[in-house]
């Protein structure tokens, strides 16, 4: 593919709001998971990665119809690291009809519907009048909110492919840029805690009773988190700073195997990684670090390990940040692309936390401590329910 430039980016998660807080936590190998106190889910024995300042975030009065936890998290994310200013500059350069919005989410404002059902009118079963489906519950509400926030008039959509959602938006945006339909894209993802995902993963017995431990021989499942990650994608300028991060390749595939379990050999995952390398015109040996999907469920890590060893052997340093951030589901691809970009810009490899005993059955080169090695090119993996896989290759400009 023709490389595109990550001209501005930001991320907010349980590690904190914005890049400084994220970087500080990663450098200190400090996680943000805490025992689940989420309203209505107090009976679940698990840890979650909740974004703390979320209740204080109020939408602008002209956008109150979008009021829900997911859009509050989106706004909080947009306000960090001068991201909104960068979007405004892009609008000034290209026009508001030439800036696309392509965002990933798995549940959008589903929490709003869950709460509305709890407030049904006893006799009729009707939902309360203050529940607005279009701007909160519907999957598109996230992209609609961001489009309305910036008064944009360009193409927009939500990709909702479970946990690969906000990785796949990078591929879609790169295609729209290549086709000349847009000149810039706001990509990334926002997913927020809700009962559907907490009780859903609980029903599959995939929630870890302790902070999740990716690739540990004693891993007990995942910890759910929430996050907002935004990236402004543009065609690269004529001259690039060495620190500029480029999207070099994208690879997508399907398992065609099972709705909620990965192919045990990781065949779909390996196809996505191989396609991303091909798209970037690179070999496996050109990749300095793999940001693993690494959810810490027994089957996911085993399948991903198979796929990684099939392509990379045991040579390439790899880690999952989900021990620190939790699995942020539809926001994970975006969040981990931003963390990969930080690794490229600041010259370090983030070690995964909570992993005490590496699973000897998975012979990858898993990093449990930070490494001072400065990567030039990294791969970020995102896989999801329905057998959906997406890998991104990011690299420094020089």
């Amino acid at each position, binding site marked *: 593919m023709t490389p595109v430039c990550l001209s501005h980016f930001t991320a907010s998660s349980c590690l904190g709001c914005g890049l400084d807080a994220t970087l500080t936590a990663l450098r200190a190998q400090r996680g943000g998971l805490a025992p689940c106190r989420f309203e209505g889910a107090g009976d679940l024995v698990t840890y979650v990665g909740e974004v703390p300042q979320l209740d204080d975030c109020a939408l602008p009065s002209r956008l109150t119809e979008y009021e829900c936890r997911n859009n509050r998290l989106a706004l909080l994310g947009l306000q960090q690291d001068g991201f909104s200013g960068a979007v405004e500059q892009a609008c000034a350069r290209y026009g508001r009809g030439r800036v696309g919005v392509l965002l990933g989410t798995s549940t959008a404002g589903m929490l709003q519907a869950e709460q509305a059902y709890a407030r049904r009118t006893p006799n009729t079963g*009707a939902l309360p009048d203050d529940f607005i489906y279009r701007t909160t519950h519907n999957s598109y509400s996230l992209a609609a909110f961001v489009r309305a926030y910036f008064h944009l008039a360009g193409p927009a959509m939500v990709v909702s492919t479970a946990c690969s959602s906000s990785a796949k938006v990078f591929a879609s945006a790169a295609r729209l840029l290549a086709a000349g339909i847009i000149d810039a894209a706001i990509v990334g993802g926002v997913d927020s805690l809700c009962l559907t995902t907490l009780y859903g993963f609980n029903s599959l017995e995939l929630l870890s009773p302790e902070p999740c431990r990716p690739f540990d021989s004693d891993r007990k499942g995942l910890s759910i988190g929430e996050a907002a990650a935004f990236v402004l994608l543009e065609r690269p300028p004529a001259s690039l700073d060495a620190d500029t991060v480029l999207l070099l390749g994208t690879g997508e595939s399907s398992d065609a195997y099972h709705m909620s379990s990965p192919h045990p050999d990781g065949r779909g995952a390996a196809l996505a990684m191989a396609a991303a390398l091909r798209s970037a015109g690179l070999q496996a040996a050109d990749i300095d670090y793999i940001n693993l999907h690494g959810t810490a469920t027994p089957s996911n890590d085993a399948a991903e390990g198979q796929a990684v060893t099939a392509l990379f052997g045991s040579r390439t340093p790899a880690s999952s940040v989900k021990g620190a951030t939790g699995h942020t589901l539809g926001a994970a691809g975006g969040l981990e692309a931003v963390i990969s970009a930080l690794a490229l810009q600041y010259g370090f490899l983030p070690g995964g936390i909570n992993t005490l005993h590496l699973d000897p059955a998975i012979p990858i080169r898993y990093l449990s401590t930070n490494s001072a090695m400065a990567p030039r090119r990294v791969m970020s993996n995102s896989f999801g*329910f329905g057998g959906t896989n997406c890998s991104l290759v990011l690299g420094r400009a020089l």
Partner: protein
Amino acid sequence: MASPTTIILNAWIDGIGLLGPGLDHWAEARPILAGATDYAPRPVVVPPPVVLPPPERRRVGLAAKVALAVAQEAITTAHVDATQLAAVFSSSGADGDNCDALCRVLASDDRHISPTRFHNSVHNAAAGYWGIASGAMTPATALCAYDGSFGAGLLEALTQVAVDGVGTLLVTYEAPYPEPLHAKRPHPAAFGLALVLMPQPGPHSLAALHVEVTQTPFDRLPDANLEALRLQIPSARGLPLLRLLAQGRAGQVILEYLDPLSLTVDVLPCS
């Protein structure tokens, strides 16, 4: 900035799948859409998902059944190998029955939901079932753009065809929500529309498409009942394109997308 190298969004339609009230299959619906036969709405009969293995057949919901039915029809009429096509699924609401069932349980005293309910709740459930049914390990995505979901799906599919040079199956579909969500989002019926879009013309190509994103006012359908369908169901926003294809003539159609944008589609039938 490097100057954009604009790629023309061209594709060839090789297959069509259609299912809606009074619109069973493309071949049967064609004279209705062309205006040669009157449109008579009647309840949709969704065929069983015979393409799925028995365990998945038992678990799949109505919305995914609609998606699978039109996807299979489009593949069959195109005479293509589904494992070679990328897939774009686009829906505003996906599985409304499942969403309602989940919300009811989560609002009750016992919030334990079934694993099947949970995996059917993902917006890409239809794409996942299609992968299992077809064996395609190719890229598949699942989009939502509310009432613009047809336009968003068409745009995504066309960029895959034109930029990546791969044949792409576009599946747009909707199923009605039960009450109480129906009062908030009143889709009147199940509806599905699928297209097989190819980067090169072939022996089964029906028409060539050229698409541009414009701000031209969109077309409406002359039949009042069909126009009501177009307005009420996001995937039926593609019906004006099918009407022009049904008429078998060259022409232009303006599809509703996202305010203020439309998709201007030039159609040239393949003899």
